[in-house]
């Protein structure tokens, strides 16, 4: 895997090959994933607000709901839940696509023509995922906080002023960029795992299915490992 990653890194130098392909992948892997990310964020915000109210009622002032929703969505649940969801959608998509190309010998054809399949298939996907995951996460965070705010005002005995007081009370700019940096690393990891398992697919459809499954599992594991890594390094 290390040797493979090194090869993919070397393929970054073939800018003329992968650059025209990036926008298309950004659209398919990023823009098309925004609705699912928003869907997840809405319910995450709602549940977090209700959960915080349940925990804090009688013990702490309710404006702490805003602090909990903001901190949690920005730093943890926004990037991680979005990453998990996209590990299924994007990782599976990449693994299935490249795996199919592998089992149908399209990758072999590229190699025969002198193209590096990593420059042509892996790098544009990894770059696109790395660039678009923070974008998706930004939407998810905004929608998640908004959902928590609306829930607090409509379902809980909490005013907008109190929610915003809690939201701003413990806010630091680091909360925001910490989540975005994490999500970029999640995107790169998911795209790398999908590409790795896709290129390693063998056999027919069964091999592609297995590669897809393993790509999703590895992507989720990579997210959890990276999440802990960034927490240790940046917090």
């Amino acid at each position, binding site marked *: 895997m290390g040797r493979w990653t090194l090869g993919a890194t070397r393929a970054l130098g073939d800018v003329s090959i992968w650059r025209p392909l990036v926008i298309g992948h*950004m659209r398919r892997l990023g823009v098309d994933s925004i609705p699912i990310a928003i869907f997840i964020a809405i319910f995450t915000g709602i549940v977090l607000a209700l959960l915080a109210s349940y925990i804090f009622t009688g013990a702490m002032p309710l404006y702490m709901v805003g602090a909990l929703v903001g901190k949690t969505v920005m730093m943890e649940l926004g990037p991680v839940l979005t990453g998990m969801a996209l590990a299924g959608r994007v990782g599976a998509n990449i693994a299935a696509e490249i795996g199919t190309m592998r089992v149908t010998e399209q990758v072999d054809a590229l190699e025969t023509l002198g193209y590096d399949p990593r420059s042509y298939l892996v790098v544009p996907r990894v770059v696109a995922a790395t660039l*678009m995951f923070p*974008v998706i996460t*930004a939407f998810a965070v*905004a929608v998640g906080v908004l959902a928590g705010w609306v829930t607090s005002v409509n379902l809980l005995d909490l005013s907008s002023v109190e929610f915003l007081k809690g939201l*701003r009370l413990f*806010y*630091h*700019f680091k909360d*925001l960029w910490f989540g975005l940096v994490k999500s970029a690393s999640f995107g790169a990891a998911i795209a790398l795992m999908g590409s790795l398992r896709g290129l390693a697919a063998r056999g027919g459809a069964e091999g592609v299915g297995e590669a897809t499954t393993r790509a999703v599992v590895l992507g989720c594991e990579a997210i959890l490992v990276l999440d802990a890594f960034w927490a240790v390094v940046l917090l």
Partner: protein
Amino acid sequence: MKRRNEFLVGLAVLAALFLVVAGALWLSEADLNQKEATYTARFRTVEGLQVGNPVTLRGVRVGKVVGIRLVPNGWVETEFSIDRDARLPAKPAVIAASASLFGGWAANIISFEPLPDDPNVRAALVESDQAGGAAWPGATLPDIGQLTAQASRIASDIASVTQRVQGAFDSAALRQLRQSVLDMAAISNRLVTFANSQTGRLDRVSGNLVTTSDAFAGVTRSLDRAVARVDSATSQNQLREIMNNGRDASGDIRQASADFRQLMATMRANDASLVRVLQSADSLLTRLQAGNGTLGKLATDSTLYYETAATMRQFRELLADIQAHPKKYIKVSVF
């Protein structure tokens, strides 16, 4: 298709960028219109005060903490962004204090004069003010955690004292206390009985005292009569004569005493002269003894004695010769 992809991707990226930037500015309450001014305060320690914490003036939020940095000489400088419309005291000071039980801190702007009553805060503000510079003086109140820890220690002490009191007043101690009270009651009853019995005796003693007093009165009357008799005895001027003689003797004694006192005064006046005479005599005798002066030499030098004796002998022979041959020495002629 490619155009559409580029449009959608660009739109998504720009929208996300806007969300991030706008959200960050909104949440951090950034001052884009320059409606706030920046001030600095100096603390020894800021405890839990952090960037973003509110700054209040008389309880109203007027700004926030925008920077905290260590500076030389053991100070911490804190920057505040404060609403320009807020009317600050003429000489402001800042007290950093815990704002809630949940770790939130706030910087409260107060007037430096008059200084707060708390001696620790007062000392911290004065020390910070004396450091000079444009920074406002600052002081930090203890964290709520420290206060609760102190309260916890006090509560533990009270519990300990309570336990000790409880241990001291166990059931046995209470029984003993009850017995002591009963004993005190018995002693009190005995004292009452004793006092009643002694009251009769005291009454008798009082009666005796009255009788004695009457007897003394009789004695006094007898004495009066004796004095009257003595008085009648003096009617023949015997006592008066004795008294006159005594008065005369007293006058003589007084006169003798005055003479004696005068004599003593004279002696005391001559005392100094006598001392001087004695000192001179002593000095003279000392010189004589040492053989100094003519008298000393006369007293100590035997040569002079022998010379004088020889002279006297020759003088005696001369007198004898003059008596024997007067004409040899005396010639009398009238013309």
